[in-house]
């Protein structure tokens, strides 16, 4: 057990929990506040909140782990996709979805395509986000077991339940405000770590040379082209298809604030990955990755090697914070998907807000238990698991969202065909393992696109009202 690190970690998590409890009462004021923080978040808080929601544990641990294990071009592919997330989603969907005035992605699907598509979308969100809990839990389990000296399984269970309690108590209010702290800790932590590394190795070029001396393949493209391309597109689309990121967009005060927040969040992300490049190089220069039980642990090893225990403890707390905020944003998306989009919309529209919020809590607990069970024996590297989630969501509703916003002729039948077709092809490809890892969306997403276009054209166009609605989405540019 690492005593200093443990104390810092526990104090940190306790402080965050108290924060969550403080915001609990505010959160229960109304359902709107609970899910989107009452739409009153400013640019500064918003930038860190968006950043922290996108920057899941995989941004740090997973990217570094994959870069050390598979060569630094893999790390750069990860960054190349991830840093494009916010610009890409701003360009194509953010303004329009905001104009639509909906709170969640499934709600958008209802407005544009009707109830059947909303139900299917809510189902995809719940499955995708539940699986997305797995890499978060894996990362927290690895850190927790290392710091607290308990076994990995116990760490996954205890921390997983802790995250759930936290998300359940505070809703989006607590998460958005603690994200300001978590985002800052994570960012400052990794920049400080990068500076320690650069000083230790006498500069950037020497650092790269040290990494190459230990691992001559460090600078090589080691995987098939399709793996890199598949990973890139899965991440590129993440801001469009990830319900947790989209929900953050709605928490901003107005459209201008939302755009500025996203722009600054992109810069924060860029700095994070520049520092991550140093951490990856340092990890490779240590030459221990093959001896680790789990390659994603290399990040923690770098922290221990280069930082004094107190700073290391803060850094680990920052990592844990990143994981907690991502996991909590996911839990909220799952709970909104079932409680709000399925139960209140379709099963019992007269349900009280208090009951819907309560149902949301129950759903969160079930989802985290499922996540914990899978995370006890994780099916791959963190980066690869996150790539699967991105690929799954992209194949399911990447094109139904974008064409729903941009193409009047897209109709309900087409959207259903595109969603179900994309998801089914994706799952068949994952199970069949014919393609290189993470290459699945290269096939599944175009299948979804083609189905959506062909089936829409073969069936009746949407009503005039729906077509006018599509024009309305774009009125932010000509008013």
């Amino acid at each position, binding site marked *: 057990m690492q005593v200093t690190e443990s104390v810092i970690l526990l104090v940190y998590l306790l402080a965050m929990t108290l924060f969550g409890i403080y915001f609990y009462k505010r959160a229960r004021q109304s359902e709107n506040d609970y899910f989107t923080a009452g739409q009153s978040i400013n640019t500064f808080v918003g930038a860190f909140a968006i950043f922290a929601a996108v920057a899941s544990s995989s941004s740090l641990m997973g990217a570094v782990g994959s870069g050390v294990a598979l060569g630094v071009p893999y790390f750069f592919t990860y960054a*190349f996709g991830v*840093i494009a997330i916010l*610009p890409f989603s701003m*360009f194509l969907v953010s303004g329009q979805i905001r104009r639509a005035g909906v709170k969640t992605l499934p709600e958008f699907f209802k407005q544009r395509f009707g109830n059947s598509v909303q139900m299917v979308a809510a189902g995809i969100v719940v499955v995708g986000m539940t699986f997305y809990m797995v890499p978060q839990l894996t990362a927290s389990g690895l850190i927790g077991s290392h710091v607290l000296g308990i076994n990995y399984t116990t760490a996954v269970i205890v921390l997983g339940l802790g995250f759930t309690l936290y998300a359940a108590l505070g809703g989006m209010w607590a998460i958005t405000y603690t994200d300001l702290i978590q985002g800052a800790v994570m960012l400052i932590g990794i920049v400080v770590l990068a500076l320690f590394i650069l000083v230790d190795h006498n500069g950037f070029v020497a650092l790269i040379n040290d990494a190459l001396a230990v691992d001559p393949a460090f600078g090589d493209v080691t995987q098939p082209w399709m793996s*890199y391309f598949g990973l890139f597109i899965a991440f590129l689309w993440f801001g469009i298809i990830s319900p947790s990121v989209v929900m953050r967009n709605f928490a901003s005060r107005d459209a201008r604030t939302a755009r500025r927040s996203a*722009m600054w969040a992109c810069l924060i992300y860029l700095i994070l990955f520049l520092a991550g490049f140093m951490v990856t190089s340092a990890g490779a220069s240590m030459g221990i990755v093959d001896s680790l039980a789990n390659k994603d642990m290399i990040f923690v090893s770098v922290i221990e090697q280069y930082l004094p225990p107190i700073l290391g403890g803060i850094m680990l707390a920052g990592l844990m914070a990143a994981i907690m905020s991502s996991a909590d944003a996911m839990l909220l998306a799952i709970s909104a998907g079932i409680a709000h989009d399925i139960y209140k919309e379709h099963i019992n529209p007269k349900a009280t807000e208090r009951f819907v919020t309560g149902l949301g809590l129950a759903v969160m607990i079930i989802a985290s238990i499922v996540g914990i069970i899978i995370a006890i024996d994780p099916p791959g590297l963190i980066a690869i698991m996150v790539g699967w989630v991105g690929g799954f969501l992209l194949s399911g509703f990447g094109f139904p969202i974008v064409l729903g916003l941009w193409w009047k002729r897209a109709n309900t039948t087409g959207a259903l065909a595109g969603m179900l077709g994309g998801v089914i092809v994706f799952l068949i490809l994952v199970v069949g393992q014919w393609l290189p890892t993470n290459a699945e969306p290269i096939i599944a997403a175009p299948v979804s696109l083609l189905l959506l276009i062909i089936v829409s054209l073969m069936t009746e166009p949407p009503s005039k009202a729906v077509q006018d609605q599509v024009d309305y989405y774009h009125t932010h*540019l000509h008013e």
Partner: protein
Amino acid sequence: MASRSKFLDPGLILTVVLVIYAAFVFIWWPTDIYWLGISLVGWLMFVGLFFWFGLGIIYALWIERIEGKNDS
């Protein structure tokens, strides 16, 4: 209310720019050219990170300019 084609939306135009750079990297795919011991593929992506942020700034300012014109 000035009508403005969706095809002139800054978002759509910048998406095309983004796709062109990504396509350039993934089509050329220079795995065997190295600089500082790291494949040029990696460096092209590294440059791309700054390019993406630049596109984000251009978008935010561009839209604000359009909104400013519409307001006045």
